[in-house]
């Protein structure tokens, strides 16, 4: 009888190892989105309209400004016209001051970029969706309408929370 149990456990272990190997061999692009919640991703800041990365574009400037604020370590930025989506992660020990940091980011961005409207969030879901949108834009062949729809979806998700 114990032999039977051992066989079942052995079979499960082998399945688990195969699953791990299969996950490890996956597409690297997908891996970035897959580990966005637990690892630092640092995605390039993009614009929904242009889709090509510009080193001195507004999204990149916004990203640099936000990343410079104390307690923030991973920033994802996507721009759509005047609206700029800013999602970031807060250091674990500073998570008690989330509200204060969000206020700081908002006032800092409003002061620095007066003509733009910012959607700021430290929620993991918003960050994950922003990284997904970012990867969508990096793929280039995605229609712009689809990317804009995704942007609006994230915006409504953020509004739902407040």
């Amino acid at each position, binding site marked *: 009888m114990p032999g039977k149990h051992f066989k079942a456990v052995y079979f499960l272990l082998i399945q688990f190892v195969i699953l791990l190997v299969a996950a490890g061999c996956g597409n690297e692009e997908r891996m970035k989105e897959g580990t966005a*919640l*637990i690892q630092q991703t640092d995605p390039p800041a993009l614009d929904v309209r242009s889709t090509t990365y510009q080193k001195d574009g507004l999204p990149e400037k916004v990203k640099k400004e936000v990343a410079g604020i104390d307690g923030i370590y991973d920033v994802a930025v996507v721009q759509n016209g005047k609206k700029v989506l800013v999602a970031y992660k807060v250091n674990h020990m500073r998570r008690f001051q989330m509200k204060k940091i969000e206020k700081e980011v908002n006032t800092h961005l409003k002061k620095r970029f007066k003509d733009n409207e910012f959607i700021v969030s430290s*929620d*993991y*879901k*918003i960050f*994950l969706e922003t990284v997904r949108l970012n990867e969508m834009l990096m793929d280039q062949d995605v229609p712009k309408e689809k990317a804009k729809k995704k942007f609006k979806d994230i915006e409504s*998700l953020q509004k*739902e*929370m407040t």
Partner: protein
Amino acid sequence: MANQTNDNAAQKAYKQLQGKHETQRPVLKNCLRAFLVGGIICAIGQAVMYFYIYFFNFTEQTAGNPTTATMVFFALLLTGFGVYDRLAQFGGAGSAVPVTGFGNAVISAAIEHRSEGYVLGVGGNIFKLAGSVIVFGVFSAFVVALIKTIFIQLGG
């Protein structure tokens, strides 16, 4: 009067004798076990929460509700299979303090009184242990909400 003082002295002597022979509780070991088991349960909870955030349309704030429900469901299954009791024997407070302990309290009462029938047995006793937790939670939420409302009405 003399009898009473004699009784007190005997009680004191007995207490001292009891204290001498009592086995010492391994407090540090118990704390470590509770920390380990509670930590593992919470890590599983965190993984379930990430699952809901990743695959469904839940934000960090809203993912807490389905996570709690799932953890209680896991505890129900484990209690039914008799695994949670052993875990509780090992982990002590580590298995009782997280929300899984609540699930365990509900289902173990239901299992115990199953033989008395579904209505009077299961229905009547299912919240015997966990009912006080629910009442306390609802009442304290009511009190806190009342205080907040008064503060807002006063313009705080």
